[in-house]
């Protein structure tokens, strides 16, 4: 799961060195039992009781249309399975094993034993059944996914799905599919009951919460015990600071110990162009590459970009190496549709090139000089405003005159939905667990927020999402990447990352922090 690529060699050496020192230290102390007690005493006083995190989105711990926020979904709840992008495999989490039935329209999950919710209740098949039914009742994604669930025995549960699709399994690793205790609602166990607060098996439990202000968590002892590690804080406080610049200021002023990107990706993140600045100011910058690619999406049903040739011109004119320089090379230029760890990318071998000469020749051939094209950008996407301005420059070279419209979200949505635009900057993919679901949301003919669908890509997308067989799926993925490349459906710009920026005093184990693609804060601590 750990993304070595994003750790520089120097950082790696540092980790090795720190690791060695810790190992040596512990083995040395291990020799003397008396010292052990002393060590624990020290351990107790090394870290401050509180860890304060600055975060851009409310945690919605009282629930909402989409349930609780993404941060508590990863920190309070666990899912039955997790997804390993590199191997393109689903791996056990709360479930140990699973068997497909009825062509995949049902899946039987065999659950791990001895797991407890943070309130001490046992985790069992009933809890899974409750969660599925609750999601079906209350959650948009649950509604379209689940038919129902049956308890087979204490630790075996059968989940029925609406359709027979590979996407069913993929969805089980999705944020929303966290398993919560039936006690989370009142009356307990009633899927139609009133949501009280989330109780899960994950590392955190809720202590206090004020909407749009803060959320306070405590470590869930059962989780730490299960994992065999010790928390380095007594209370984990998340301050909600909406504005990205303010969040950075809060970190600088010491009001928060760290700031983190929004677990979901794509919004409320630390500005990428600030990462290098902050690093130079002495902050620790942790990042992990994720299969989220920023792209230029076209209004591909309308002139001029209904012409694949003109889309190609744009594709060839975009200098991705320059774009990432805006962010001090903190992100990688997207020369493929997704990061190379994504299944099939390497095999597809479709490299997006920057070739202004060819682009110009092509433009001349088509006589598009002076073509006007509007590009809409949401104002909240501060980074994309910079990217948009650069692309505007780059397209000038081939004679495409880009009119940049930075819009408030309302105006943006209206323009987007009415089709009154030619290009927009958007993203495909997401964190690892969302890889397939986003494939559905962005490329499937049936969805609302699609970025590009042709007959060929639409069909391939549908096949990918129904195919359980890993190898066949990979084949479709490869074909899909090729199709998008050849049709110049979208123009990939750069691969995004998930970041956490922390003060010098924060101790983090990188591997724990990015256990999954979303940052996990169970192992952090602030040295006194």
């Amino acid at each position, binding site marked *: 799961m750990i993304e070595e690529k994003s750790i520089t060699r120097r950082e790696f050496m540092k980790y090795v060195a720190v690791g060695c020192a810790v190992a040596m230290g512990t083995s040395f102390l291990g020799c003397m039992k008396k010292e052990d007690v002393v060590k624990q005493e020290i351990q107790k006083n090394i870290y401050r009781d509180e860890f304060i995190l600055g975060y851009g989105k409310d945690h919605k711990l009282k629930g909402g249309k989409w349930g609780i926020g993404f941060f508590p979904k990863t920190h309070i709840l666990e899912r039955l399975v997790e997804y390993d992008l590199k191997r393109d495999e689903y791996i056990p989490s709360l479930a140990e094993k699973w068997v497909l039935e009825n062509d995949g329209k049902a899946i039987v999950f065999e659950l791990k034993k001895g797991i407890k919710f943070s309130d001490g209740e046992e985790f069992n098949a009933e809890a899974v059944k409750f969660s599925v039914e609750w999601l079906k009742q209350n959650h948009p994604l649950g509604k379209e996914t689940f038919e129902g669930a049956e308890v087979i025995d204490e630790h075996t549960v059968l989940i029925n799905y609406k359709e027979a699709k590979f996407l069913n399994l993929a969805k089980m690793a999705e944020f929303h599919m966290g398993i919560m205790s039936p006690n989370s609602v009142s009356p307990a166990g009633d899927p139609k009951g009133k949501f009280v607060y989330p109780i899960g098996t994950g590392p955190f439990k809720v202590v206090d919460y004020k909407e749009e202000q803060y959320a306070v968590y405590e470590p869930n002892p059962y989780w730490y015990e299960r994992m065999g590690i010790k928390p380095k804080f007594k209370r984990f406080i998340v301050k909600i600071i909406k504005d990205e610049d303010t969040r950075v200021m809060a970190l600088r002023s010491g009001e928060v110990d760290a700031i983190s990107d929004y677990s979901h990706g794509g919004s409320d993140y630390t500005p990428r162009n600030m990462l290098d600045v902050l690093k130079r*100011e002495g902050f620790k910058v942790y990042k992990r590459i994720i299969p989220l690619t920023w792209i230029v999406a076209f209004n591909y049903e309308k002139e001029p970009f209904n012409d694949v040739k003109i889309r190609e011109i744009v594709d060839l004119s975009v200098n991705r190496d320059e774009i990432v320089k805006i962010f001090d090379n903190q992100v990688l230029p997207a020369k493929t549709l997704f990061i190379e760890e994504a299944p099939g990318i390497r095999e597809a071998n479709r490299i997006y090139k920057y070739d202004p000469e060819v682009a110009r020749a092509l433009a001349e051939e088509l006589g598009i000089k002076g073509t006007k094209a509007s590009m809409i950008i949401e104002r909240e996407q501060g980074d994309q405003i910079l990217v948009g301005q650069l692309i505007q*420059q780059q397209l000038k070279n081939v004679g495409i005159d880009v009119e940049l419209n930075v819009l*408030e979200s309302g105006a943006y949505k209206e323009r987007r939905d009415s089709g009154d635009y030619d290009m927009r900057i958007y993203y495909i993919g997401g964190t690892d667990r969302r890889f397939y679901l986003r494939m559905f949301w962005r490329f499937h003919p049936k969805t609302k927020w699609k970025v590009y669908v042709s007959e060929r890509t639409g069909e391939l997308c549908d096949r990918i999402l129904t195919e359980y067989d890993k190898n066949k799926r990979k084949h479709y993925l490869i074909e899909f990447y090729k199709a998008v490349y050849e049709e110049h459906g979208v123009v990939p710009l750069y691969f995004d990352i998930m970041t956490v920026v922390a003060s010098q005093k924060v101790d983090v184990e990188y591997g724990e922090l990015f256990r999954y693609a979303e940052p996990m804060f169970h192992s952090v601590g602030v040295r006194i």
Partner: protein
Amino acid sequence: MFKTFSEFSKTNFKKIGVIFLNKTAFIGFIIILTITLMGILAPLIACDPYEADISERLQPPSLKHLFGTDELGRDIFARIAHGAKTTLLLALTISLLSMIIGSIIGAISGYYGGKIDDLLGRIIDTFLAIPEFVLNIALVGVLSAAYSDSILNIVVAIVLTNWVTYARVTRGIVMSIKEREFILCTKALGAGDSWILFKHIIPNAISPIIVLATLNMGSVVMTVASLGFLGLGIQPPTPEWGQMLNSGKNYITTAPWIMFFPGFFIAISILGFNMLGEGLRDVLEKRNIKY
């Protein structure tokens, strides 16, 4: 007070020439002239403000880039020079529009009095109670939710509040002139409303309004820049000082020049308008000395 237009023009233009004798007005005039020239000549004296050269990003001021470069490697001097055009044109448009609208409304209300005037009085009271800038922010917010032309949004949002100042002043002037003997005389002699308006009211109202407009230009520059700084103003890539300052604040530790120069020019042009306005007021509205 002047009795006829010819008397007005003689006296006033002589006085306007005296700008050069009033130190404050003169300095203000020079500042505004310089910035205006900078805006007009921007295409000649500065390079393309949109030209991004990523390899040159965040360069400190040097001979090549007089004010340094910004986060996209654009020349800050070029952006400031072109921004001068944006800012001054906006200030001029907004002031002129609000002057025309406000003066007409104020003059009508002051001249005819009665119910129209009562209503306007109430409206003015209401607008006085709500700070202009608060309304500006709210209006820009509402407008930008719907219309994508940020320049138009700003013009509309500011004019919608700004006209009140002119209406108030014009109304006061017209009301005081209306009661003067020579107007009563002309009226008795059967002069029409438009005659009185053009022969008497406009000539008398024009110099306080010129002063007001000059000072108002300064405050419009401030409003536009403030909105730009809050991210509610002119949207990129159009160079505008407030918005440049806003993007510069992120680089305050590493590249302070990005925020320094735009702010400096905002300050200096507001200073220019204030000095010119106050100087003009001294010259045009000097009260007669007693004794």
